[in-house]
């Protein structure tokens, strides 16, 4: 099948193939072999070197080299260190971490133990969303089984290494995906980020050196040890190694999780794996990187996907949400949707993010309502840049990206909204008008009966008309008409 041909499953290698509530099935597929080997060799530095050479970068979106992160944490001496797993998957439209935790929880547990050994941590914490009850249940079962088999606990597999895991629950705050905010939340406080440095590797959970990695990053670790860093680094592009899991969604035929080698093009993902645009419509844009990312156009379809190319194109990898949009999506409205999200999720600590994003949102509202001016577009651009330059954490610094990328790639669409007061995609309610073509209308009264506000009048068997002052533009008449007599202008 075309859907599978271009995919390569590393992080998702076991998902769907094993019973996640049965540790034996994980062990049969080389489970806990990497941990056993690392402990047998008893050389944390060498193990970190393997991760470094593999070229693995953080899959949560930032793309920081994982081996380097571990090395930094390993070099800070302390009586207690913490290995933390970020399972606070908050990007709307992304569910790769949930799938891994529900389908293969042991791969994360094994990797956290390996990481704990490398940096010298005896405690691991998984910060998981309370909205993922099944993932929590599977993790609890897996942790209990791993303890029973001696993969967690004291003197693991006969070595001198102690390591155990605990779960911490998120409570629905997107900003907690940022590592300093995540740590504050684990300490029972508001999840507000703090300025870095100090980095978590220096001063993290309970002020002890801590290392935070994302679920998908961890899921790659055991394979790197089992198959070798040479194998892993042979996959992907020069600076982005391995694979990436994407959640393919939106106006596309095949939706769902896919795992593809870095360097694959958007065209291959959307048209071969995704099976093209739904309903034979035109491709318009693809949004990557969630609320921090941007929209890419047709011009980027042949760009190989990796961390650096996506940033150069004005978007980012993010945690892997990939939303495909067709010609009926209005770009200022899409930008507004993401901004609305950021405004709601901003923790309120720094002014650029708290107030700046709110202002951006208001300007976008004005544009969508047909009240925007060319000056608004200039302000939109300038203010976006200021927020990018001055916000405290990653959330604020990337929040204007959806605006900047849509302004860049769909300038004409913004101009059409402010100068012609037209929405080219026909989405913005305020600029829409439903009209009845008197020649097509046979007077069946279906539309008049469907209208919730009684805006449609006319005699039976005679052409009807819509009172524009009353019309709320709900589209009910348009959907009911069987004679194509109603059009949107």
């Amino acid at each position, binding site marked *: 099948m075309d859907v599978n041909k271009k995919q390569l499953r590393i992080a998702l290698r076991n998902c769907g193939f094993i019973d996640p509530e049965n540790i034996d099935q994980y062990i049969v597929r080389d489970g806990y072999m990497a941990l056993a080997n690392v402990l047998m060799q008893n050389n944390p530095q060498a193990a970190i070197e393997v991760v470094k050479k593999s070229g693995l970068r953080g899959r949560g979106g930032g793309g920081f080299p994982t081996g380097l992160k571990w090395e930094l944490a390993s070099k800070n001496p302390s009586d207690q260190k913490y290995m933390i797993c970020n399972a606070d*998957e*908050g*990007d*709307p*439209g*992304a*569910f790769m971490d*949930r799938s891994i935790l529900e389908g293969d929880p042991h791969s994360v547990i094994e990797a956290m133990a390996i990481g704990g050994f490398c940096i010298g941590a005896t405690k691991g914490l998984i910060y998981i969303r*309370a*909205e*993922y009850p099944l993932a929590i249940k599977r993790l609890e079962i897996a942790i209990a089984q791993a303890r029973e088999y001696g993969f967690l606990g004291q003197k693991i597999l006969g070595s001198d290494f102690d390591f155990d895991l605990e779960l*911490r*629950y*998120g*409570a*629905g*705050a*997107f900003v907690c995906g940022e590592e300093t905010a995540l740590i504050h*939340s684990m*300490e*029972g*406080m*508001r*999840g507000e980020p703090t300025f870095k440095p100090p980095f978590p590797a220096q001063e993290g959970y*309970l002020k002890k050196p801590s290392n935070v990695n994302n679920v998908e990053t961890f899921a790659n670790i055991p394979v790197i040890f089992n198959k070798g860093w040479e194998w892993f680094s042979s996959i992907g592009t020069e600076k982005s190694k391995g694979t990436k899991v994407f*959640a393919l*969604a*939106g*106006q596309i035929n095949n*939706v*769902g999780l896919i795992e593809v080698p870095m360097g694959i093009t958007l065209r291959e993902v959307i048209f071969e794996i995704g099976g093209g645009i739904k309903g034979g419509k035109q491709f318009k844009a693809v*949004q990557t990187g*969630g609320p921090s990312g941007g929209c890419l156009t047709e011009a980027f379809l042949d760009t190989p996907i990796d961390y650096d190319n996506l940033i150069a194109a004005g978007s980012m990898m993010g945690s892997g*949400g990939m*939303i495909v*949009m067709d010609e009926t*999506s209005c770009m200022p409205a*899409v930008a507004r*949707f*993401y901004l609305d*999200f950021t405004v709601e999720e901003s*923790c309120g600590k720094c002014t650029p993010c708290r107030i700046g994003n709110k202002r951006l949102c208001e300007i976008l509202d004005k544009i969508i309502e047909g009240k925007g001016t060319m000056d608004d577009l200039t302000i939109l651009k300038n203010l976006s840049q200021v927020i990018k330059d001055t916000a405290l954490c990653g959330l604020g610094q990337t929040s204007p990206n959806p605006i900047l990328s849509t302004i860049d790639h769909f300038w004409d669409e913004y101009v059409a909204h402010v100068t012609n007061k037209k929405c080219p995609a026909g989405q913005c309610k305020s600029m829409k008008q439903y009209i009845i073509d008197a020649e097509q209308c046979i007077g069946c009264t279906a539309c008049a009966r469907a209208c*919730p506000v009684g805006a449609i009048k006319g005699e039976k068997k005679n052409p009807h008309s819509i009172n524009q002052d009353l019309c709320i533009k709900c589209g009910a008449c348009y959907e009911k008409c069987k004679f194509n007599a109603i059009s949107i202008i």
Partner: protein
Amino acid sequence: MPVKIKMKQDHIDKIKEICKKFNNDGGELINVLHQTQHFIGYLPAEAQELIASELNVSVAHVYGVVSFYSFFTMTPKGEYPISVCMGTACYVRGAERVLDEFKRLLNINVGETTADGKFSLTALRCIGACGLAPVITIGEKVYGRLAPDDVKGIIEEYK
């Protein structure tokens, strides 16, 4: 406005028991709140005051945490809590129109509960079921691939 109530004795006992389970440690505040909300259904002001005194932290701190996280609520939910996913995938597949239809038929806004206490309406940020977009949940039941026309029938199921 948080609802003012007089807490029942068994609620008071249960909250004290939860706090004790976490060693009355202020660092476990979020876990305590999770379990309290699971038990009572929401976090009334009185419960927050009690938790603050049990964990020896200020009420302001507890309120700050409760109001920060969207999972915590200070108003009672309806018997059938309706959550409409407004994640990106659902949004581009028309979740807003589905939400509007719920608002219209129930005559409540997002965050409100119907006068008879039967339904409450919330908008969620992605429940990770993007393949079923647009998707809603009522209690623990999931409804996927919805159109505004389906809404009426769904509400009927619970009447």
